[in-house]
Protein backbone atom coordinates (compact mmCIF):
# COMPACT_ATOMS: atom_id res chain seq x y z
CA UNK A 1 0.00 0.00 0.00
CA UNK A 2 2.79 2.35 1.02
CA UNK A 3 4.56 1.46 -2.20
CA UNK A 4 1.54 2.45 -4.27
CA UNK A 5 1.21 5.84 -2.53
CA UNK A 6 4.93 6.42 -2.92
CA UNK A 7 4.83 5.54 -6.63
CA UNK A 8 1.82 7.88 -7.17
CA UNK A 9 3.71 10.63 -5.36
CA UNK A 10 6.75 10.01 -7.54
CA UNK A 11 4.63 10.06 -10.67
CA UNK A 12 2.98 13.34 -9.65
CA UNK A 13 6.38 14.89 -8.94
CA UNK A 14 7.65 13.83 -12.35
CA UNK A 15 8.12 16.87 -14.64
CA UNK A 16 6.26 16.85 -17.96
CA UNK A 17 9.28 16.81 -20.19
CA UNK A 18 7.52 16.52 -23.53
CA UNK A 19 6.36 20.14 -23.19
CA UNK A 20 9.94 21.08 -23.99
CA UNK A 21 10.06 23.92 -21.50
CA UNK A 22 13.16 24.80 -19.40
CA UNK A 23 11.08 24.68 -16.27
CA UNK A 24 8.27 22.23 -17.00
CA UNK A 25 5.44 21.74 -14.48
CA UNK A 26 4.98 18.40 -12.80
CA UNK A 27 1.94 16.19 -13.31
CA UNK A 28 0.88 17.09 -9.77
CA UNK A 29 1.03 20.82 -10.52
CA UNK A 30 -1.06 20.37 -13.68
CA UNK A 31 -3.57 18.36 -11.65
CA UNK A 32 -3.60 21.10 -9.01
CA UNK A 33 -4.09 23.68 -11.80
CA UNK A 34 -7.18 21.90 -13.12
CA UNK A 35 -8.49 21.33 -9.58
CA UNK A 36 -8.27 25.05 -8.80
CA UNK A 37 -9.95 25.84 -12.13
CA UNK A 38 -12.74 23.41 -11.22
CA UNK A 39 -13.16 24.93 -7.75
CA UNK A 40 -13.15 28.44 -9.27
CA UNK A 41 -15.76 27.33 -11.80
CA UNK A 42 -17.98 25.89 -9.05
CA UNK A 43 -17.62 29.04 -6.92
CA UNK A 44 -18.47 31.24 -9.93
CA UNK A 45 -21.57 29.11 -10.63
CA UNK A 46 -22.70 29.37 -6.99
CA UNK A 47 -22.20 33.14 -6.95
CA UNK A 48 -24.07 33.41 -10.27
CA UNK A 49 -26.94 31.37 -8.83
CA UNK A 50 -27.24 33.60 -5.74
CA UNK A 51 -26.85 36.80 -7.75
CA UNK A 52 -29.70 35.72 -10.01
CA UNK A 53 -31.96 35.22 -7.02
CA UNK A 54 -30.87 38.43 -5.31
CA UNK A 55 -30.99 40.75 -8.32
CA UNK A 56 -34.19 39.33 -9.79
CA UNK A 57 -36.46 41.62 -7.75
CA UNK A 58 -34.11 44.59 -7.55
CA UNK A 59 -33.02 45.27 -11.12
CA UNK A 60 -34.47 45.08 -14.62
CA UNK A 61 -33.82 41.65 -16.12
CA UNK A 62 -31.35 42.87 -18.72
CA UNK A 63 -29.27 44.90 -16.27
CA UNK A 64 -29.17 41.98 -13.86
CA UNK A 65 -28.05 39.62 -16.64
CA UNK A 66 -25.26 41.99 -17.62
CA UNK A 67 -24.05 42.37 -14.03
CA UNK A 68 -24.16 38.60 -13.53
CA UNK A 69 -22.16 37.98 -16.72
CA UNK A 70 -19.48 40.51 -15.71
CA UNK A 71 -19.13 38.97 -12.22
CA UNK A 72 -19.16 35.37 -13.52
CA UNK A 73 -16.56 35.83 -16.23
CA UNK A 74 -14.54 38.14 -13.95
CA UNK A 75 -14.22 35.37 -11.33
CA UNK A 76 -13.27 32.79 -13.98
CA UNK A 77 -10.62 35.10 -15.44
CA UNK A 78 -9.08 35.91 -12.03
CA UNK A 79 -8.96 32.22 -11.05
CA UNK A 80 -7.42 31.32 -14.39
CA UNK A 81 -4.73 34.01 -14.19
CA UNK A 82 -3.83 33.16 -10.58
CA UNK A 83 -3.59 29.43 -11.24
CA UNK A 84 -1.36 29.91 -14.30
CA UNK A 85 1.53 30.33 -11.86
CA UNK A 86 1.10 26.66 -10.85
CA UNK A 87 1.98 25.41 -14.30
CA UNK A 88 4.96 27.76 -14.45
CA UNK A 89 3.45 30.19 -16.91
CA UNK A 90 4.98 33.55 -16.16
CA UNK A 91 2.45 36.34 -15.86
CA UNK A 92 5.14 38.91 -16.67
CA UNK A 93 5.66 37.26 -20.04
CA UNK A 94 1.92 37.19 -20.53
CA UNK A 95 1.68 40.85 -19.61
CA UNK A 96 4.18 41.84 -22.33
CA UNK A 97 2.41 39.64 -24.86
CA UNK A 98 -0.92 40.80 -23.52
CA UNK A 99 0.15 44.42 -23.78
CA UNK A 100 1.03 44.09 -27.45
CA UNK A 101 -2.06 42.03 -28.08
CA UNK A 102 -4.06 44.60 -26.12
CA UNK A 103 -2.89 47.41 -28.40
CA UNK A 104 -3.80 45.37 -31.47
CA UNK A 105 -7.16 44.35 -30.04
CA UNK A 106 -7.73 47.87 -28.73
CA UNK A 107 -7.40 49.37 -32.21
CA UNK A 108 -9.55 46.64 -33.67
CA UNK A 109 -12.25 46.84 -31.06
CA UNK A 110 -12.68 50.57 -30.56
CA UNK A 111 -16.30 50.39 -31.67
CA UNK A 112 -17.01 47.37 -29.48
CA UNK A 113 -15.56 49.11 -26.42
CA UNK A 114 -17.43 52.29 -27.28
CA UNK A 115 -20.67 50.30 -27.51
CA UNK A 116 -19.88 48.50 -24.27
CA UNK A 117 -19.25 51.71 -22.33
CA UNK A 118 -22.29 53.36 -23.90
CA UNK A 119 -24.31 50.30 -22.87
CA UNK A 120 -23.15 50.72 -19.27
CA UNK A 121 -24.08 54.40 -19.31
CA UNK A 122 -27.49 53.54 -20.78
CA UNK A 123 -28.03 51.10 -17.92
CA UNK A 124 -27.10 53.80 -15.40
CA UNK A 125 -28.94 56.73 -17.01
CA UNK A 126 -31.97 54.70 -18.14
CA UNK A 127 -33.33 57.02 -20.85
CA UNK A 128 -35.29 54.03 -22.16
CA UNK A 129 -36.57 50.79 -20.65
CA UNK A 130 -37.66 47.51 -22.17
CA UNK A 131 -41.28 47.94 -23.28
CA UNK A 132 -41.07 51.72 -23.83
CA UNK A 133 -42.37 53.27 -27.02
CA UNK A 134 -39.46 55.33 -28.36
CA UNK A 135 -37.92 57.11 -31.30
CA UNK A 136 -34.16 56.67 -31.44
CA UNK A 137 -32.32 58.26 -34.32
CA UNK A 138 -35.44 58.18 -36.46
CA UNK A 139 -36.33 54.56 -35.62
CA UNK A 140 -39.70 54.39 -33.88
CA UNK A 141 -40.99 51.34 -32.04
CA UNK A 142 -41.02 49.38 -28.81
CA UNK A 143 -37.74 48.62 -27.02
CA UNK A 144 -37.49 44.84 -26.80
CA UNK A 145 -34.02 44.44 -25.30
CA UNK A 146 -31.10 46.47 -23.99
CA UNK A 147 -27.92 44.42 -24.20
CA UNK A 148 -24.30 45.23 -23.44
CA UNK A 149 -23.47 46.16 -27.02
CA UNK A 150 -26.79 46.99 -28.63
CA UNK A 151 -30.42 47.92 -28.13
CA UNK A 152 -33.11 46.18 -30.10
CA UNK A 153 -36.37 47.75 -31.17
CA UNK A 154 -39.47 46.22 -32.69
CA UNK A 155 -40.69 48.94 -35.01
CA UNK A 156 -44.39 49.67 -35.22
CA UNK A 157 -44.34 47.70 -38.47
CA UNK A 158 -43.04 44.71 -36.54
CA UNK A 159 -39.48 44.85 -37.89
CA UNK A 160 -36.52 43.79 -35.73
CA UNK A 161 -34.04 46.67 -35.57
CA UNK A 162 -30.69 46.55 -33.79
CA UNK A 163 -29.07 49.84 -32.87
CA UNK A 164 -25.49 49.88 -31.50
CA UNK A 165 -25.39 51.37 -28.03
CA UNK A 166 -22.94 54.15 -28.89
CA UNK A 167 -25.45 55.40 -31.44
CA UNK A 168 -28.31 55.11 -28.93
CA UNK A 169 -26.27 57.01 -26.36
CA UNK A 170 -25.29 59.84 -28.68
CA UNK A 171 -28.66 60.10 -30.47
CA UNK A 172 -31.66 62.27 -29.89
CA UNK A 173 -34.06 59.97 -27.98
CA UNK A 174 -37.78 60.53 -27.66
CA UNK A 175 -39.43 58.29 -25.09
CA UNK A 176 -43.17 58.46 -25.61
CA UNK A 177 -44.09 56.76 -22.35
CA UNK A 178 -41.49 58.09 -19.91
CA UNK A 179 -44.07 60.49 -18.50
CA UNK A 180 -47.46 59.38 -17.24
CA UNK A 181 -49.40 61.61 -19.59
CA UNK A 182 -48.85 63.39 -22.87
CA UNK A 183 -50.61 65.98 -24.99
CA UNK A 184 -51.70 65.88 -28.60
CA UNK A 185 -53.92 68.11 -30.66
CA UNK A 186 -56.09 68.71 -33.69
CA UNK A 187 -57.15 71.76 -35.62
CA UNK A 188 -60.74 71.73 -36.84
CA UNK A 189 -62.15 74.36 -39.21
CA UNK A 190 -65.80 75.46 -39.12
CA UNK A 191 -67.73 77.81 -41.43
CA UNK A 192 -67.70 81.54 -40.73
CA UNK A 193 -71.47 81.37 -40.38
CA UNK A 194 -71.31 78.78 -37.57
CA UNK A 195 -71.29 79.55 -33.88
CA UNK A 196 -67.76 78.88 -32.65
CA UNK A 197 -68.82 78.93 -28.99
CA UNK A 198 -71.41 76.23 -29.66
CA UNK A 199 -68.80 74.18 -31.51
CA UNK A 200 -66.42 74.51 -28.56
CA UNK A 201 -69.08 73.38 -26.09
CA UNK A 202 -69.96 70.34 -28.29
CA UNK A 203 -66.31 69.33 -28.49
CA UNK A 204 -65.83 69.88 -24.75
CA UNK A 205 -68.77 67.64 -23.89
CA UNK A 206 -67.49 64.95 -26.22
CA UNK A 207 -64.05 65.07 -24.59
CA UNK A 208 -65.51 65.08 -21.07
CA UNK A 209 -67.35 61.85 -21.88
CA UNK A 210 -64.19 60.03 -22.94
CA UNK A 211 -62.50 58.17 -20.05
CA UNK A 212 -58.96 58.61 -21.35
CA UNK A 213 -59.20 62.34 -22.04
CA UNK A 214 -57.79 63.46 -18.72
CA UNK A 215 -59.91 65.51 -16.36
CA UNK A 216 -56.76 67.31 -15.25
CA UNK A 217 -54.90 68.79 -17.15
CA UNK A 218 -58.18 69.57 -18.80
CA UNK A 219 -58.47 69.81 -22.60
CA UNK A 220 -57.85 73.24 -24.13
CA UNK A 221 -60.25 74.29 -26.90
CA UNK A 222 -60.10 77.76 -28.44
CA UNK A 223 -60.42 79.68 -31.71
CA UNK A 224 -56.90 79.64 -33.02
CA UNK A 225 -57.12 81.36 -36.36
CA UNK A 226 -59.50 83.20 -38.67
CA UNK A 227 -58.29 81.46 -41.80
CA UNK A 228 -59.12 82.03 -45.47
CA UNK A 229 -61.97 79.55 -45.65
CA UNK A 230 -62.74 78.62 -42.05
CA UNK A 231 -62.64 79.57 -38.42
CA UNK A 232 -59.95 77.27 -37.00
CA UNK A 233 -60.54 75.72 -33.59
CA UNK A 234 -57.52 74.30 -31.79
CA UNK A 235 -58.06 71.27 -29.56
CA UNK A 236 -55.34 70.12 -27.17
CA UNK A 237 -55.91 66.90 -25.24
CA UNK A 238 -53.95 65.30 -22.39
CA UNK A 239 -54.16 61.53 -22.27
CA UNK A 240 -52.35 58.70 -20.43
CA UNK A 241 -49.15 57.91 -22.36
CA UNK A 242 -50.02 54.23 -22.41
CA UNK A 243 -53.15 54.75 -24.50
CA UNK A 244 -52.85 58.19 -26.11
CA UNK A 245 -52.64 56.80 -29.63
CA UNK A 246 -55.99 55.03 -29.29
CA UNK A 247 -57.57 58.30 -28.18
CA UNK A 248 -55.77 60.19 -30.96
CA UNK A 249 -57.09 57.89 -33.68
CA UNK A 250 -60.59 57.84 -32.23
CA UNK A 251 -61.45 61.45 -31.40
CA UNK A 252 -61.00 63.40 -34.63
CA UNK A 253 -63.75 61.56 -36.48
CA UNK A 254 -66.02 61.68 -33.42
CA UNK A 255 -65.54 65.45 -33.27
CA UNK A 256 -66.44 65.76 -36.96
CA UNK A 257 -69.57 63.63 -36.53
CA UNK A 258 -70.67 65.44 -33.36
CA UNK A 259 -70.28 68.86 -35.00
CA UNK A 260 -72.18 67.86 -38.11
CA UNK A 261 -74.96 66.37 -36.00
CA UNK A 262 -75.48 69.86 -34.54
CA UNK A 263 -75.45 71.51 -37.96
CA UNK A 264 -71.87 72.76 -37.77
CA UNK A 265 -69.95 71.87 -40.89
CA UNK A 266 -66.32 71.72 -41.86
CA UNK A 267 -66.06 73.93 -44.96
CA UNK A 268 -64.27 73.36 -48.24
CA UNK A 269 -61.71 75.94 -49.35
CA UNK A 270 -63.61 78.87 -50.83
CA UNK A 271 -62.94 82.21 -52.47
CA UNK A 272 -65.29 85.18 -52.92
CA UNK A 273 -64.96 86.64 -56.42
CA UNK A 274 -66.25 90.11 -57.23
CA UNK A 275 -67.24 90.38 -60.90
CA UNK A 276 -66.55 93.61 -62.72
CA UNK A 277 -69.98 95.08 -63.58
CA UNK A 278 -71.31 98.22 -65.29
CA UNK A 279 -71.05 100.25 -62.07
CA UNK A 280 -67.35 99.48 -61.80
CA UNK A 281 -66.46 100.53 -65.32
Amino acid at each position, binding site marked *: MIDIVASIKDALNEPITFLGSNNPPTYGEVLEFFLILLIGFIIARIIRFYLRRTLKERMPKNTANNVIKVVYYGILSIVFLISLNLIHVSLSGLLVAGGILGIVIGFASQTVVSNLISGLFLVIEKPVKVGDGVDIDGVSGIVTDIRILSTTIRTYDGIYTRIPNDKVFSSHIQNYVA*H*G*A*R*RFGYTVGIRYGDDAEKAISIIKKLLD*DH*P*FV*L*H*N*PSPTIFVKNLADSSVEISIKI*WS*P*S*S*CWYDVYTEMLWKIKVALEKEGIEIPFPQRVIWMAGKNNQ
Partner: protein
Amino acid sequence: MFGKYDLDVTLAEDGVKIVVEDAGKRKRYYRKCGKEEVEKFIHADTGRIVVCPVEPVNIPLPNPAEHLQIELDKPLIVASGERDTFYTTFPVEVGVFLVDRKDVERIDLFTKTKPKFTLYGPPESGIVCKWWQSSIYSEPPKVKKLREGVFKVDIRNEYHEWMEIQKLVFCGHEMKMFYNDHAYLHGFIKIQKRTVGDTGFISRKPKDMHGSIDIHLAKGLKRLENYVMEWGFK
Protein backbone atom coordinates in the same frame (compact mmCIF):
# COMPACT_ATOMS: atom_id res chain seq x y z
CA MET B 1 -76.41 41.37 -5.48
CA PHE B 2 -73.15 41.00 -3.52
CA GLY B 3 -72.62 37.62 -1.92
CA LYS B 4 -71.63 33.99 -2.37
CA TYR B 5 -73.79 31.72 -4.51
CA ASP B 6 -73.94 28.17 -5.83
CA LEU B 7 -73.22 27.47 -9.48
CA ASP B 8 -76.87 27.80 -10.30
CA VAL B 9 -78.15 31.27 -9.68
CA THR B 10 -79.97 34.19 -11.25
CA LEU B 11 -79.40 37.70 -9.94
CA ALA B 12 -80.93 40.93 -11.19
CA GLU B 13 -80.59 44.43 -9.79
CA ASP B 14 -80.41 48.00 -11.12
CA GLY B 15 -80.13 46.94 -14.77
CA VAL B 16 -77.55 44.22 -14.09
CA LYS B 17 -78.37 40.57 -14.66
CA ILE B 18 -76.16 37.61 -13.75
CA VAL B 19 -77.15 34.06 -14.60
CA VAL B 20 -75.28 30.82 -13.94
CA GLU B 21 -77.17 27.82 -15.28
CA ASP B 22 -76.68 24.30 -16.57
CA ALA B 23 -75.66 23.99 -20.20
CA GLY B 24 -75.19 20.29 -20.83
CA LYS B 25 -72.03 19.07 -19.14
CA ARG B 26 -70.98 22.61 -18.34
CA LYS B 27 -72.37 25.72 -16.69
CA ARG B 28 -73.18 28.83 -18.63
CA TYR B 29 -72.26 32.20 -17.15
CA TYR B 30 -74.15 35.17 -18.57
CA ARG B 31 -73.97 38.78 -17.47
CA LYS B 32 -75.65 41.88 -18.83
CA CYS B 33 -74.85 45.39 -17.64
CA GLY B 34 -76.34 48.15 -19.76
CA LYS B 35 -75.56 47.25 -23.37
CA GLU B 36 -72.57 45.10 -22.42
CA GLU B 37 -73.08 41.35 -22.41
CA VAL B 38 -70.65 38.61 -21.41
CA GLU B 39 -71.10 34.90 -21.83
CA LYS B 40 -68.71 32.18 -20.67
CA PHE B 41 -68.80 28.47 -19.99
CA ILE B 42 -67.62 26.92 -16.76
CA HIS B 43 -66.46 23.35 -16.48
CA ALA B 44 -66.49 22.59 -12.76
CA ASP B 45 -68.26 20.23 -10.39
CA THR B 46 -67.55 22.09 -7.22
CA GLY B 47 -66.97 25.72 -6.41
CA ARG B 48 -69.10 28.75 -5.84
CA ILE B 49 -69.63 32.13 -7.40
CA VAL B 50 -68.70 35.23 -5.43
CA VAL B 51 -70.02 38.60 -6.56
CA CYS B 52 -68.34 41.41 -4.68
CA PRO B 53 -67.01 44.93 -5.11
CA VAL B 54 -63.35 45.17 -6.07
CA GLU B 55 -60.76 47.95 -6.04
CA PRO B 56 -62.18 50.60 -8.39
CA VAL B 57 -59.06 50.90 -10.54
CA ASN B 58 -59.52 48.08 -13.04
CA ILE B 59 -61.97 49.27 -15.69
CA PRO B 60 -61.73 50.10 -18.57
CA LEU B 61 -58.97 48.02 -20.05
CA PRO B 62 -56.18 48.74 -20.79
CA ASN B 63 -56.18 50.40 -17.42
CA PRO B 64 -53.54 53.08 -17.11
CA ALA B 65 -54.07 53.73 -13.39
CA GLU B 66 -53.36 52.06 -10.09
CA HIS B 67 -54.59 54.96 -7.98
CA LEU B 68 -57.94 56.48 -7.19
CA GLN B 69 -58.30 60.23 -6.83
CA ILE B 70 -61.38 61.48 -5.03
CA GLU B 71 -62.03 65.13 -5.67
CA LEU B 72 -64.27 66.77 -3.10
CA ASP B 73 -66.82 69.07 -4.68
CA LYS B 74 -66.32 71.48 -1.78
CA PRO B 75 -62.94 71.70 -0.04
CA LEU B 76 -62.42 70.78 3.60
CA ILE B 77 -60.24 72.99 5.77
CA VAL B 78 -58.58 71.30 8.75
CA ALA B 79 -56.86 73.13 11.60
CA SER B 80 -53.35 72.19 12.67
CA GLY B 81 -53.30 69.17 15.00
CA GLU B 82 -56.99 68.42 14.39
CA ARG B 83 -58.56 65.05 13.52
CA ASP B 84 -61.80 64.52 11.69
CA THR B 85 -63.80 61.69 10.17
CA PHE B 86 -66.00 62.16 7.15
CA TYR B 87 -67.58 60.10 4.40
CA THR B 88 -67.40 60.28 0.64
CA THR B 89 -68.56 58.01 -2.14
CA PHE B 90 -66.37 56.06 -4.54
CA PRO B 91 -67.07 54.32 -7.87
CA VAL B 92 -67.98 50.67 -7.59
CA GLU B 93 -66.49 48.01 -9.81
CA VAL B 94 -67.95 44.56 -9.40
CA GLY B 95 -65.92 41.38 -9.69
CA VAL B 96 -67.36 37.93 -10.27
CA PHE B 97 -65.12 35.13 -9.00
CA LEU B 98 -65.13 31.38 -9.11
CA VAL B 99 -63.85 30.04 -5.81
CA ASP B 100 -63.10 26.65 -4.38
CA ARG B 101 -60.82 25.46 -1.60
CA LYS B 102 -57.72 25.66 -3.75
CA ASP B 103 -58.07 28.69 -5.95
CA VAL B 104 -59.82 31.93 -6.82
CA GLU B 105 -60.41 32.87 -10.46
CA ARG B 106 -61.84 36.15 -11.65
CA ILE B 107 -64.29 35.49 -14.44
CA ASP B 108 -65.86 38.89 -14.92
CA LEU B 109 -65.54 42.52 -14.04
CA PHE B 110 -68.00 45.32 -14.71
CA THR B 111 -69.10 48.73 -13.56
CA LYS B 112 -72.17 50.89 -13.88
CA THR B 113 -70.16 54.09 -13.49
CA LYS B 114 -68.59 56.15 -16.26
CA PRO B 115 -64.83 55.93 -15.80
CA LYS B 116 -62.69 59.03 -16.03
CA PHE B 117 -58.97 59.52 -15.49
CA THR B 118 -56.86 62.40 -14.28
CA LEU B 119 -53.25 63.27 -13.64
CA TYR B 120 -52.08 63.87 -10.10
CA GLY B 121 -48.86 65.88 -10.07
CA PRO B 122 -46.86 67.32 -12.95
CA PRO B 123 -46.77 65.51 -16.34
CA GLU B 124 -43.09 64.54 -15.99
CA SER B 125 -43.46 62.78 -12.65
CA GLY B 126 -47.15 62.66 -11.80
CA ILE B 127 -49.35 59.60 -11.80
CA VAL B 128 -52.48 58.84 -13.76
CA CYS B 129 -55.41 58.14 -11.41
CA LYS B 130 -58.98 57.01 -11.76
CA TRP B 131 -60.99 60.16 -11.03
CA TRP B 132 -64.15 60.46 -9.00
CA GLN B 133 -65.97 63.47 -7.65
CA SER B 134 -67.83 63.25 -4.40
CA SER B 135 -69.54 65.42 -1.86
CA ILE B 136 -68.43 65.29 1.72
CA TYR B 137 -70.80 63.75 4.29
CA SER B 138 -70.85 63.66 8.07
CA GLU B 139 -72.81 60.41 8.13
CA PRO B 140 -72.60 57.40 5.80
CA PRO B 141 -74.44 58.56 2.66
CA LYS B 142 -77.23 56.65 0.98
CA VAL B 143 -75.72 55.24 -2.17
CA LYS B 144 -76.85 53.56 -5.37
CA LYS B 145 -75.37 50.23 -4.40
CA LEU B 146 -74.06 49.05 -7.75
CA ARG B 147 -72.68 52.47 -8.63
CA GLU B 148 -71.27 53.98 -5.45
CA GLY B 149 -69.70 52.74 -2.26
CA VAL B 150 -69.27 54.40 1.12
CA PHE B 151 -65.78 55.63 1.91
CA LYS B 152 -65.03 56.51 5.52
CA VAL B 153 -61.99 58.77 5.76
CA ASP B 154 -60.06 59.61 8.93
CA ILE B 155 -58.05 62.77 8.48
CA ARG B 156 -55.32 64.11 10.74
CA ASN B 157 -53.47 67.36 10.14
CA GLU B 158 -49.99 66.98 11.64
CA TYR B 159 -48.74 70.09 9.87
CA HIS B 160 -48.41 73.32 11.80
CA GLU B 161 -50.76 75.29 9.54
CA TRP B 162 -54.36 75.13 8.40
CA MET B 163 -54.75 72.85 5.40
CA GLU B 164 -57.32 72.94 2.64
CA ILE B 165 -58.13 69.50 1.22
CA GLN B 166 -59.86 68.92 -2.07
CA LYS B 167 -58.05 65.90 -3.49
CA LEU B 168 -57.43 62.53 -1.90
CA VAL B 169 -55.29 59.95 -3.69
CA PHE B 170 -55.25 56.29 -2.66
CA CYS B 171 -53.35 53.34 -4.04
CA GLY B 172 -55.59 50.62 -5.48
CA HIS B 173 -53.18 47.85 -4.48
CA GLU B 174 -53.58 48.74 -0.82
CA MET B 175 -57.35 48.91 -0.74
CA LYS B 176 -59.15 46.65 1.67
CA MET B 177 -62.72 46.48 0.48
CA PHE B 178 -65.70 45.27 2.51
CA TYR B 179 -69.33 44.79 1.64
CA ASN B 180 -72.77 43.90 2.89
CA ASP B 181 -75.47 45.27 0.61
CA HIS B 182 -73.09 48.04 -0.46
CA ALA B 183 -69.33 48.47 -0.87
CA TYR B 184 -67.34 50.00 1.95
CA LEU B 185 -63.80 51.34 2.38
CA HIS B 186 -62.13 52.82 5.43
CA GLY B 187 -59.07 54.93 4.69
CA PHE B 188 -56.99 57.58 6.34
CA ILE B 189 -54.92 60.57 5.40
CA LYS B 190 -52.17 62.07 7.53
CA ILE B 191 -51.06 65.51 6.41
CA GLN B 192 -47.38 65.93 7.15
CA LYS B 193 -46.33 68.96 5.13
CA ARG B 194 -47.98 71.60 2.99
CA THR B 195 -47.96 69.30 -0.04
CA VAL B 196 -47.19 65.90 1.48
CA GLY B 197 -49.50 63.40 3.12
CA ASP B 198 -49.73 59.68 3.76
CA THR B 199 -52.82 57.81 2.65
CA GLY B 200 -53.71 54.23 3.42
CA PHE B 201 -56.44 51.85 4.49
CA ILE B 202 -57.65 50.30 7.69
CA SER B 203 -58.01 46.58 7.20
CA ARG B 204 -60.10 45.84 10.31
CA LYS B 205 -63.36 44.24 9.21
CA PRO B 206 -66.41 46.23 10.27
CA LYS B 207 -69.27 44.47 12.03
CA ASP B 208 -71.81 42.76 9.75
CA MET B 209 -69.58 43.08 6.70
CA HIS B 210 -67.64 40.63 4.57
CA GLY B 211 -64.18 41.08 3.15
CA SER B 212 -64.07 41.36 -0.64
CA ILE B 213 -61.74 39.26 -2.72
CA ASP B 214 -58.59 41.29 -3.26
CA ILE B 215 -58.18 41.38 -7.01
CA HIS B 216 -54.48 42.21 -6.80
CA LEU B 217 -53.82 39.33 -4.44
CA ALA B 218 -55.88 37.09 -6.73
CA LYS B 219 -53.67 38.25 -9.61
CA GLY B 220 -50.58 37.43 -7.55
CA LEU B 221 -49.50 41.06 -7.24
CA LYS B 222 -47.89 42.28 -4.07
CA ARG B 223 -49.47 44.76 -1.76
CA LEU B 224 -47.58 47.99 -1.32
CA GLU B 225 -46.98 50.36 1.56
CA ASN B 226 -49.04 53.48 2.22
CA TYR B 227 -49.20 55.93 -0.64
CA VAL B 228 -47.47 59.27 -0.19
CA MET B 229 -49.30 62.20 -1.74
CA GLU B 230 -46.48 64.57 -2.62
CA TRP B 231 -48.09 67.07 -4.97
CA GLY B 232 -50.56 68.71 -2.64
CA PHE B 233 -54.23 68.41 -1.80
CA LYS B 234 -55.83 71.09 -4.00
